[in-house]
């Protein structure tokens, strides 16, 4: 029972990271029908910026804030300079461009920061909390991760639901034609979506790096899990991305915990297995609605 509780809490904590990545992918997908393969690389690069600020200022929170801001800027620049010129062209072009962007970002990170593993500080203690003498398998930092992702998700949800800017983003995502004909500057809305996605990715980067170390490829597997979470939940569903992330985090935690010494090696296989099952049974994701297709 104690083990189950530990694996559950640990799974939820990592699941929050996957949810943040999934949410960033969903934001971009809804706006541009494009999967940003560079999302993990962008998160990695902003985490390097964060660590430089932390070392320069001695303040974790300064680095945290700068990372989020850098993520928003990087998302904006990527959309304006790299992605927008590719829109309206064959879809494969944009896919290849994002893969190229990933390679570029990881290469630049290697050049500027080197390839060695670097530790990244945690905002709070990573020592496991206890209930009496029972270890809970979760630390203050894990609670911070959960709170940060939940708060960000809630803010986004409220913003989308109750603000004019959010309404513009939803309108542009659901029907760009009607949105444009109503006076909504869809291109600008898409840029904002990329900025938000960059911010979310940066958040995921600073939250996961204390556990994984930081190196140019450190976010690749996190991106794969985040992408899997987005597909599980449905690429069109922000709520689905969050739930998908949590479910995946739990599944991987249980697999890693209960499968013994082989567990951690099998987690990519478990993620792949879940992805295959979801794609076979519900290809549009758990939270997908019925789509009407015009013929």
């Amino acid at each position, binding site marked *: 029972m104690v083990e189950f509780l530990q694996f559950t809490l640990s799974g939820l904590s990592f699941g929050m990271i996957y949810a943040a990545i999934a949410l960033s992918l969903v934001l971009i997908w809804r706006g541009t029908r494009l999967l940003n393969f560079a999302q993990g690389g962008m998160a990695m690069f902003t985490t390097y910026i964060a660590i430089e600020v932390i070392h320069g200022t001695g303040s974790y929170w300064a680095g945290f804030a700068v990372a989020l801001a850098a993520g928003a800027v990087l998302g904006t620049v990527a959309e304006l300079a790299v992605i927008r010129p590719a829109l309206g062209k064959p879809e494969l072009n944009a896919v290849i461009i994002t893969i190229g962007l990933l390679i570029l970002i990881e290469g630049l990170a290697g050049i500027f920061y080197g390839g060695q593993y670097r530790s990244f500080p945690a905002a709070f203690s990573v020592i496991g909390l206890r209930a009496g003498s029972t270890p809970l398998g979760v630390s203050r930092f894990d609670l911070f991760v959960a709170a940060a992702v939940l708060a960000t998700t809630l803010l986004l949800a409220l913003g989308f639901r109750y603000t004019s800017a959010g*309404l513009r983003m939803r309108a542009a995502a659901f029907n760009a034609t*009607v*949105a444009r004909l109503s006076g909504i500057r869809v291109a600008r809305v898409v840029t904002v979506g990329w900025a938000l996605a960059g911010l979310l990715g940066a958040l995921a980067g600073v939250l996961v790096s204390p556990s994984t170390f930081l190196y140019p490829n450190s976010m690749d597997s996190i991106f794969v899990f985040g992408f899997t979470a987005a597909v599980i939940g449905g690429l069109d569903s922000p709520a689905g991305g969050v739930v998908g992330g949590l479910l995946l985090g739990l599944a991987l935690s249980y697999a890693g915990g209960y499968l013994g010494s082989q567990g951690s090696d099998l987690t990519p296989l478990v993620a792949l297995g879940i992805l295959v099952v979801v794609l076979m049974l519900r290809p549009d994701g758990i939270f997908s609605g019925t789509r009407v297709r015009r013929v």
Partner: protein
Amino acid sequence: MSSDTLVVEDLVAGYGEVVALDKVTITAGTATITAVLGANGAGKTTLLRAISGMVRPRGGRILLDGADRTGRSPENMARAGIAHVPEGQGVIAELTVEENLRIGMMSWPGIGGRRADRAAALAEAYERFGSLADRRRKLAATLSGGERQMLVIARALVARPRVLLLDEPSLGLAPRIMTQVMDMVVRLSRENGITIVLVEQNARGALAIADRGVVLNLGRVVASADAATLAADVALRHHYLGF
């Protein structure tokens, strides 16, 4: 005599190598209804798309209240006062009724105007379309075809455009609902002073409510006159309009 709110001069537009509009000229007077008629492939929808900016003209001019708006983007055309409801794409099904109405305000100057103005516009729309008031929090996807068209027209009312381009607003509707929609279109023109350009396969119904008609064939204007004159031209009707 009304002044012309919308003037389209020698408009040329197309898709790739296909020329869909070949020097089309139409005028639409203030607070009038102009019906654009013709067979499938005549260029009616392309005409509306070119006016609203969805298709970039290759030649000619589009004047709105005398100002040249040729080649502007759809967003800029909407903000200039041209609202376009494409065929079958009037509402955003994933948004609620009220959200769809609020979308109509996105073209107002000053990013949607003041809160009091927005509230007043919504109140006017709900007063005129009581059935929408009852369903303001429901998704537009739950509305029937006729209710969706009512929502489209209500949003047009909220948007306060100078010109409203309607592409087949009665498509797929039951005759009774079709009549209601057409009545609403007439009220938008007469009571709200909106200049309306109406594309309709139902030529008889369109000419019954229009002030003026334009008949297109293979991208060219073959007839342009007041609606009564076109309706009385039996040969024209039989040859181009199918009745």
